[in-house]
């Protein structure tokens, strides 16, 4: 019900050389969920604080439904922020904690109690109204905090790694609950996370952040499959990058020539990337395959990781159980044409 536009948002904390948020522009359509994904220190949480109004930007603007928020205090923005820490008021009962925002809106007492009870059912903690926060486990506290954030039916909900301290099973249940509620109530939601799988599974759009800069913003599947830059690809789990000169649909790299497809034209330096699970290991030569040597083979449960030496470079290949037998020694690594994609170079070259 609220569209959020942030434009050239900039924030640099005192005595920091790097800006925490570096001229970021984003548009979150009403009723959608945007995930802010990035490593620690990428400025994700700062963006939430700026949108919530508990911190002020150095430059740039934030608009809710076209209205400039610069002069609107945090408590008048209608945006609820849920922190990584539950921040339940220790001197209030669970019910009074959840009702905190309703009391401000002067909701009648019986209606308030009904709303509290309904929210506790929703987060699957019925009947704990009278308890104190200190009596709850970490996961329960987080769920009560979620109930408190949702009970006022905010137009905008900002979640700062709300699930990171939870066990995997509880985390999945709550992820699904939040996603369901978000869709039902049409809340515009921003979710900060460093968990790639969480961002991809929950969001309508994923904004990829690194060191305060916006690397990319796209739908989960597009971002995962075709990250636009080398750094974005790295954050999406890509570790193999080949640079070379393009000659028609042949890329000449230091390791050898590969057939590529539908790449931007020009015979300049081009970088192609491929996901580790898209590389294929062959026991004998094949199309678009380079000779390699298995340096290490690591069992990781769902998949097996091969560390290959191709020429002087290291390439990591991920195979799923049963795809290959146990290969070792000399092999061939195949680069399927359909999975090779070009990336922009946004990183200082580490090696030739």
């Amino acid at each position: 019900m609220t569209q959020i536009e942030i434009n050239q948002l900039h924030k640099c904390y005192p005595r920091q050389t790097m800006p925490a948020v570096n001229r970021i522009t984003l548009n979150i359509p009403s009723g959608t969920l945007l995930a802010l994904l990035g490593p620690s220190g990428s400025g994700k949480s700062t963006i939430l604080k700026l949108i919530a109004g508990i911190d002020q930007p150095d430059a740039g603007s934030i608009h809710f439904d076209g209205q400039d928020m610069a002069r609107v205090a945090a408590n008048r923005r209608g945006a609820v922020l849920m922190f990584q820490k539950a921040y339940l008021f220790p001197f209030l009962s669970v019910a009074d904690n959840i009702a905190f925002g309703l009391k401000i809106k002067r909701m009648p007492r019986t209606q308030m109690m009904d709303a509290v009870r309904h929210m506790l059912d929703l987060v699957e903690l019925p009947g704990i109204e009278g308890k104190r926060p200190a009596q709850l486990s970490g996961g329960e506290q987080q769920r009560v905090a979620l109930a408190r954030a949702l009970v006022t039916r905010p137009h905008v909900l900002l979640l700062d790694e709300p699930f990171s301290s939870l066990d995997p099973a509880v985390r999945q249940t709550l992820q699904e609950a939040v996603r369901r509620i978000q869709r039902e109530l049409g809340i515009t939601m921003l979710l900060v996370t460093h968990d790639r799988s969480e961002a991809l599974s929950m969001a309508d759009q994923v904004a990829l952040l690194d060191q305060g800069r916006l690397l990319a913003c796209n739908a989960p599947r597009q971002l995962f499959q075709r990250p636009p830059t080398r750094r974005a690809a790295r954050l999406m789990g890509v570790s193999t990058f080949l640079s070379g000169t393009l000659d028609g649909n042949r890329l000449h790299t230091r390791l050898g020539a590969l057939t590529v497809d539908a790449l931007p034209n020009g015979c300049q330096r081009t970088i192609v990337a491929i996901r580790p699970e898209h590389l294929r290991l062959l026991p004998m030569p094949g199309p678009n395959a380079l000779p390699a040597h298995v340096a290490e083979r690591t069992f990781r449960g769902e998949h097996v990781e091969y560390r290959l030496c191709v020429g002087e470079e290291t390439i990591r290949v991920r195979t799923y159980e049963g795809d290959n037998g146990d290969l070792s020694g000399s092999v061939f690594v195949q680069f399927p044409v359909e999975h090779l994609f070009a990336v922009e170079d946004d990183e200082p070259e580490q090696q030739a």
Partner: protein
Amino acid sequence: MQIQSQPSSRVRARVRVAYARRARQVLIALLFSAWLLPSIVLVLHAFTTRWFYPQLWPAEWTGAPFMRQLTNPQTRQALTNSLLVAGVVTARSLLIALPAARTLGLRQFRGKELVLLLLGLPAIIPPIATGMGMNILFLRLGLGGSLPGVVLAHLVPVLPYTVFALTAVFARYDSGYEQQAATLGASPLRVLFRVTLPLIAPGLAVAALFAFLVSWNQYVLTLLIGGGRVITLPVLLFSVISGGNVTSIAILSLLFAALPMVAISLTAGALTDQSPVTG
């Protein structure tokens, strides 16, 4: 000691732990007795008329001198002055210390230890040393010999206590609670009264107690700045001490110690009711 054919190191470790616990208990008992024993001696002297060396226990008990001292108008005036000064000093010092302590507790900056150390000086620099200078200064400002002057003088040694106590509170304080309340729609005033103050209530109580007691306890500054015209309980007590009447001394000492006791008991009671908040 456990009897065992082969005392394992685990048993020895347990014995060691038990010893350490016992040592701590003895230590704490010693600390308390250092404070309790003198009080008992005072009570004995306040409610007896005859107790001479080498008697181990006084011979006669009476409450008459106690009542006489209590109804004395001089005593009442001193009591009123002490309460008034300590009360005003407590309120003022909390109002001044709260924003300073918030800054010192929440912010990290270079030389913070130094600022805290310098802020603590007035509490430990001898009041006799600063008091004389203050006296001369206050006389020139026309504040000598007045209650406001005494209140102002008391603030000098009191403020470090309140600033320190509240700084310790804010060092463990997480302002995230306030930010959370704001995004839930609470106005700054509501945040202050419904979130911040309840969160720091126990620390605030302790700070107020310290402020009250340090002011209540002031003798040198009251004498110097009050110039003999502002008679508080300790000033009266000291003049009685030079008189040498042991029973009067004991009674006034007890009276003087009674209010701190009550204040401390009330605070302690309130603290144990509530679990530690913040963090």
